[in-house]
């Protein structure tokens, strides 16, 4: 197990290095950058003090150096103008647009992004396991067809359109606004019980919207797995020997069918994070989504780079957790991996 863990961590480190290079390449793709654009603008206004400040920032962040040096400085593998200070050292850079350190710009948004995605994962599991068991044990019943049908709709309806529809109808029928994180009257107030309630109420819709597609996919897969297992002889034997239906189900086939279920978290997470970015934009949730969009539009490179890195790390770490869980549950995987 320890060998498996070690190998898996090493793979993850390599993956993260490649991802960071990819992210850096992408944020450097657009011609020009925020500061040089700013300097052009300031030249036109002849504002020499501001130009001097911008040029100082360029020097400060080593933006006058060749790209590969900039990359190494950014991740903290090479001393920049102020020594080693990059992602590895926990320095996330400077946001030029906000004129603040990146930490201050997205500090809260990071937690909220984590929270929303975690809530969605929990939602998916809590909802799809019982539905899948129901429709597998009562195959071809009305409930099964209904679950399959809703699953199809959930798979095919794009989450951001669903968010828009809900935004419109909830507002129209119940007069509640589900945009934002909490009711606007709580803005700037301390965290009271009422504010927390409003916060939780606002979290429900994004969680459902983000989780729906994943739920549909999970139900489909889990149902197929369970149906495979239910036809096997050990289950028939268990029932023939007089084990009650619930116990027979939960003790053997259910545990078997859970296996691919955990493995699937890895496939699920990238979609989930994508969905949460998009849905946050529609519902104006203060997650990293809206910040990323504006940072990309303004070429605020350290901010955009850090957010891209963050969402990538989120999925990669999520996959690591699902792999470890899987290896813990299923010895075949940790043994089979030792080729």
């Amino acid at each position, binding site marked *: 197990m320890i060998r498996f863990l070690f190998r898996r961590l090493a793979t993850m480190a390599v993956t993260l290095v490649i991802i960071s290079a990819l992210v850096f390449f992408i944020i450097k793709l657009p011609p020009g950058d925020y500061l040089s654009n700013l300097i052009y603008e300031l030249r036109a206004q002849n504002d020499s003090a501001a130009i001097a400040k911008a040029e100082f920032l360029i020097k400060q962040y080593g933006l006058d150096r060749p790209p590969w040096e900039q990359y190494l400085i950014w991740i903290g593998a090479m001393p920049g103008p102020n020594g080693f200070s990059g992602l590895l050292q926990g320095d996330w850079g400077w946001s030029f647009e906000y004129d603040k350190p990146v930490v201050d710009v997205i500090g809260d948004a990071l937690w909220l992004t984590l929270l929303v995605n975690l809530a969605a994962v929990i939602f998916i599991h809590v909802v799809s396991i019982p539905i899948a068991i129901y429709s597998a044990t009562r195959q071809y019943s009305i409930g099964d067809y209904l679950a399959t049908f809703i699953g199809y709709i959930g798979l095919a309806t794009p989450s*951001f359109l669903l968010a828009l529809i809900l935004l419109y109808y909830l507002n129209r029928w119940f007069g509640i606004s589900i945009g934002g994180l909490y009711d606007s009257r709580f803005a700037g107030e301390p965290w009271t019980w009422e504010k927390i309630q409003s916060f939780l109420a606002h979290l429900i819709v994004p969680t459902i919207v983000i989780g729906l597609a994943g739920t549909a996919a999970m139900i489909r897969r889990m149902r197929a797995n369970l149906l495979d297992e239910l036809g096997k002889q050990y289950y028939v034997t268990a029932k023939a020997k007089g084990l009650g239906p619930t116990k027979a189900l939960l003790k053997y086939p259910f545990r078997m069918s859970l296996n691919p279920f955990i493995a699937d978290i890895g496939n699920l997470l990238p979609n989930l994070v994508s969905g949460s970015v998009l849905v946050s934009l529609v519902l104006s949730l203060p997650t990293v989504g809206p910040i990323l969009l504006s940072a990309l539009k303004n070429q605020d490179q350290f901010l955009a780079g850090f957010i891209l890195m963050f969402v990538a790390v989120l999925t990669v770490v999520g996959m690591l957790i699902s792999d470890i869980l899987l290896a813990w549950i299923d010895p075949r995987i940790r043994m089979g991996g030792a080729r």
Partner: protein
Amino acid sequence: MNTLLPRARHYVDPAPFDPGATEPTGAENESFYRASSWQLMWWKFRRHKVALAAAFVLLAFYLMVPFVEVIAPYNQTKRNGDFLYAPPQRIHLMHEGRLIGPFVYPYEFTFDLETFRRVYTVDPSKPQSIRFFCRGDPYEFWGIWQTNIHLFCPPEDGTLFILGTDRLGRDLFSRIVYGARISLTIGLIGIAVSFTLGLFFGGLAGYLGGWVDHVIQRMIELLRSLPELPLWLALSAALPPNWSPVLVFFGITIILGLLDWPGLARAVRSKLLALREEDFVKAAELMGASKKRIIARHLIPNFMSHLIASATLSIPSMILGETALSFLGLGLRPPVTSWGVLLNEAQNLAAVQLHPWLLFPMVPVIIVVLAFNFMGDGLRDAADPYH
């Protein structure tokens, strides 16, 4: 029977030999044995009623693409300055108890000084008939013929806003029809890009094996572990703002295809590896078929059907990707009209509350995406006709 048999030492029946009589195969069975695998797939697909219906829906949508100018009653850029944010006009058939064919009642508007909105009211005394195969806004058909014939047009000195108008008074229905051209083709071009990349990398990995396979597999895993949308956002933000709309269109398509190929490549690779071990390949080898013949006659047709099925299943994600990017303002830009560009106007809640018909472009998006999913499922089932 027994008494009839030993008639001669070597009896030959003078009647012509009919193999069907000794081994009874009904007409159905016989055609089953003779059918090519493509035919079998078609038969199997045909049994899947929902998939078949979805295929017809898609056919209807795609048949519309070359003729959008004829189908749309207005030009996509035609502004009706007097009818900003006009709600959808209802089409009636009966006027005062008499059937007079499809017609609309004309709009009149007053300006509400409290809310600063135009309030539209219909005048039910003057029915205006919709014209068919008529002359309306001029356009250049396929860039060759200058003409102005439309399938149906607004009445003389009247208006026909089936789905209302937007903030510039442009007819939403016409714009959705025009948008279909971009939104539907972007899925096909994107899938062509990702199909080529997937075939190339997957084929390379499956055919060469060894370290090439290893590297490509790691690459696939890496790309699959990244969330697509933030990368799409970043890449499309990198498209130079001075590009022409056509270039942006191709740029976006390539970006969509660029991140989509890992799934296909993985399918190609595993199919290649699995098929190499199949009995029929061994049989062909034993019979002395050349490698070229095995690949061309046995391998490719076998996994082509699977690939087409999985490609069909990934077209919706392309269409949705374009819609999402344009919706966020990072994808296609006006004057190019796509469903995503149209939805961009529905981005803020105020607009949606006051003018809910602006959300209508999502209906064709959902229909097309659902149809592709159903058809892809049917194709996937049909891709294995012998099971």
